[in-house]
């Protein structure tokens, strides 16, 4: 099978992954938070039909003929949207052979694409699902280049594919880490970055370059056009280039503003320099990522209209580009009018995606700390539901219980931002999800330590 056929086959698989058994249901008498930034309301009703939300809120009529679940004592919310995870890319972080989250020795950077590496059967996907995470984005860690490659929007459904949208965004890392990858200095990182965008701009517009065949765009089943040279065999394009033709072609939609560019940056000065890039590359559709010192440049970020995916609670000067880190960062940026989602929880320790709700809860806690800037409950919950979905291009479709949104819904045993709460039932596209996994198997086996009759290995 040639490359083109492979791409088309992958696209076909994506297209076929549709809800298998969406349940129509009504939940009544629940505490409902819609994810839109409003505070939760009690005694509310949620209606889901054919895998989509029909209505949610107080005073919603119960349609005739639909099964009704009493939600007394329960909270009902949209599923959490976990921005910038590595879910599906690894089994054990430290076991390199199981870990596809970065490609240190790859000859490629921007051309890397997480889509073929995603494993929906990963335990971490199952743990995330059981924690109320229904959607998210997955990035490729910049390792061999300042460009990490192309990330995807995914779902956590217990089915054969995670892919919702491949090649949803490109990632580039600047700041200290970008400087190191670029050869030792921010000067080099910026030079590499600008050169890459210029090569891509040229590559995207110069029809005289050998190769490329037909100038039309290739449909690969998603909505981001792929330059035809991504999938042909001609390589000639002059001598004075740094990027491989794959990497240059991958950046064509970035420089054209057709694919989002996630820029990892922390220091206030670096943030301002990134915002200034749009004078040079006006079509860049940027999202700032990390942004520990964002509060020091909040007005500029807001004025630029660039959204942020922020590390939730960093408050230590863990590097010289994070000297101003404070837990109030997110609250202050939002107060300044910046669109901020929480994200970047890409591990299995304190940074496991499961902890997004805990971090959001901590931002609410800040409202009771004098001098700190926190978020209301509704604002905090939006930073892990509707806002990250919106930044990913799925506003109104994921992370919300508004009419027409995907039936991604979680029924909780309490306030979802409280550390003592957990999901009772999780739906994705209206399909009830299994919540068991390796951890639950161990839990059940070791409920007791009785081996008087048989070894524990027979207890399953």
């Amino acid at each position, binding site marked *: 099978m040639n490359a083109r056929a492979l791409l088309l086959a992958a696209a076909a698989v994506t297209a076929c992954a549709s809800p298998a058994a969406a349940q129509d249901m009504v939940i009544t008498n629940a505490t409902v938070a819609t994810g839109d930034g409003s505070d939760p309301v009690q005694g509310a009703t949620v209606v889901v039909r054919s895998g989509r939300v029909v209505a949610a809120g107080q005073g919603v009529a119960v349609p005739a003929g639909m099964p009704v679940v009493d939600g007394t004592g329960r909270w009902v919310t949209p599923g959490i949207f976990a921005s910038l995870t590595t879910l599906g890319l690894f089994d054990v972080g430290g076991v390199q052979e199981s870990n596809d989250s970065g490609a240190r020795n790859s000859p490629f950077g921007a051309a890397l694409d997480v889509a073929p590496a995603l494993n929906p059967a990963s335990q971490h996907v199952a743990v995330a699902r059981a924690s109320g995470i229904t959607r998210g984005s997955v990035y490729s860690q910049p390792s061999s280049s300042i460009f990490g490659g192309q990330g995807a929007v995914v779902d956590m459904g217990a089915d054969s594919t995670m892919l919702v949208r491949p090649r949803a965004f490109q990632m580039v890392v600047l700041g200290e*880490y970008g400087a190191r990858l670029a050869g030792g200095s921010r000067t080099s990182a910026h030079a590499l970055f600008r050169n890459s965008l210029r090569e891509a701009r040229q590559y995207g517009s110069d029809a005289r370059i050998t190769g490329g065949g037909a100038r039309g765009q290739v449909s690969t089943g998603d909505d981001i056009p792929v330059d035809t040279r991504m999938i042909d065999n001609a390589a000639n394009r002059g001598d004075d280039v740094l990027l491989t033709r794959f990497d240059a072609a991958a950046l064509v939609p970035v420089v054209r503003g057709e694919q989002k560019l996630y820029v990892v940056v922390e220091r*206030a000065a670096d943030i301002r320099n990134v915002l200034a890039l749009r004078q040079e590359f006006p079509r860049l559709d940027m999202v700032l990522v*990390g942004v520990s010192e964002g509060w020091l440049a909040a007005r500029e970020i807001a004025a630029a209209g660039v959204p942020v995916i922020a590390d939730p609670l960093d408050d*230590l000067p863990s590097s010289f580009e994070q000297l101003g880190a404070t837990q109030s960062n997110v609250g202050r940026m939002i107060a300044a009018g910046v669109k901020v989602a929480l994200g*970047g929880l890409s591990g299995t*320790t304190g940074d496991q995606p499961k902890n997004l709700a805990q971090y959001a809860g901590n931002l609410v806690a800040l409202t009771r700390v004098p001098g700190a800037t926190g978020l209301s409950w509704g604002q905090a919950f939006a930073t892990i539901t509707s806002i990250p979905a919106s930044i990913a291009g799925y506003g109104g479709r994921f992370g919300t219980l508004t009419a027409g949104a995907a039936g991604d819904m979680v029924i909780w045993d309490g306030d979802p931002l409280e550390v003592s709460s957990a999901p009772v039932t999780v739906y994705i596209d209206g399909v009830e999800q299994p919540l068991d996994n390796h951890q639950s198997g161990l839990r059940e086996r070791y409920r007791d330590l009785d081996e008087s009759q048989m070894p524990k290995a027979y207890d399953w």
Partner: protein
Amino acid sequence: MTNKGAVQAAPFFFGDPMKQLRFSIIAALAFVAAACSTTNGEGPKTASDTQTAKDAPTPFPSTYNRYPGRPTALVGATVYDGNGGRIDNGTVLLRDGEVVAIGDAALATDGYDRIDGTGKFVTPGIIDIHSHLGDYPSPSVDAHSDGNEATSPTTPEVWAEHSVWPQDPGFSRALANGGITSLQILPGSANLMGGRSATLKNVPARTVQGMKFPGAPYGFKMACGENPKRVYGGKGRMPSTRMGNFAVNRQTWLDAKTYADGDRKKRDLAKETLAGVLDGDILVHNHCYRADEMALVMDMAKEMGYKVSAFHHAVESYKIGDLLKENDVCSAIWADWYGFKMESYDGIQENGALLWKAGACVVIHSDDENGIQRLNQEAAKAQAAGRRMGIDIPDAEVVRWITLNAAKAMGIDDMTGSLEAGKMADVVLWNGDPLSVYSRPEKVWIDGALMYDANDPKRRPISDFELGQPGAGDVK
């Protein structure tokens, strides 16, 4: 973030993935600063050689003295005493650095400044049994990498206190956001025997001596499993396997026993530490993930004549709660970390609850400069996971996991860790239920001195490093 020996926890792009590899996959070998002496007793005889180390005055003694405090009565709050007790509408009296009494609303408060704690909660100061503040401080630059003397698999001769940088800004965050009043700073886990720990009061000081917990015994860091064999196997030397780990450990103990059974007159820093363990004066804190390895370590301890005080990062303790109870060994654990390395693959959120049900000692630890700010939340997560599987653990018991149980495993439980008359007045007033995500410390006393007050911007320490920097004095 820097998790020395567990794994680096930061989302890669907010930190530096090279650091992630430093502590987890590639380990510390490439970045170690040769900071500590590895004296083996060579050199001229001196007067001090005529007495054994056991008889000599302790070097680097604590210079910490409590700061002034006012006689204070906390009234009206819900009090968790750290020892499993709960008093609603309780009263806690502090004077001259000590807890004078705790009781209900009937307790007389004459002569005390009354602080109204209505709607608030009081606990003992929170204790983190596993921290690397100071020996892997912020900023997390190579020049600060002082936690692993990864040049030999056994370095009992190094002392963490010689690596601790008192200006680590992390101490202040642990105080203000986590209510941490005491903590144990451990060497990392690159080595089978990593060296002595330092037990500190979380008071800002110009020197580490100014933070050392007076009268606290030393701890001794050991490590099982993947880290030592990876670090030294990677250098082509022993140990490169788990069986190699045990062989090196056992031979080192046998040599130490020979030393300990002798006259001990020749100064030998490594052997002095090991002899201190065999004497029961130095407490073993053993990084160990897997249940089967913990069982082997407990047998090795019996063979050699020492006791393990606590297994740290013990993600599989729930598989051997019975053995741990029988051997009186605490498990210092995270609430939910798992899957970052092979030996952590079987971590489950119910670990703490299952241990508690088995009657074994549970301690919640951080190993992380961010996690140390939320030990209360981690304890609450572990409690809730238990409740969902039908194990109901009272809140007051859960508070013990981050107070008295930690103190017990660190050997300071006769001085702190619970609110009892005569103990150090290490106390946190929380602005709500400490087991809720929405609560934060409002005031923190250490030895009766008010060291943090959320309502007083000046009663918040700023390390030298942060002065004049962006955000200095911010709430953080």
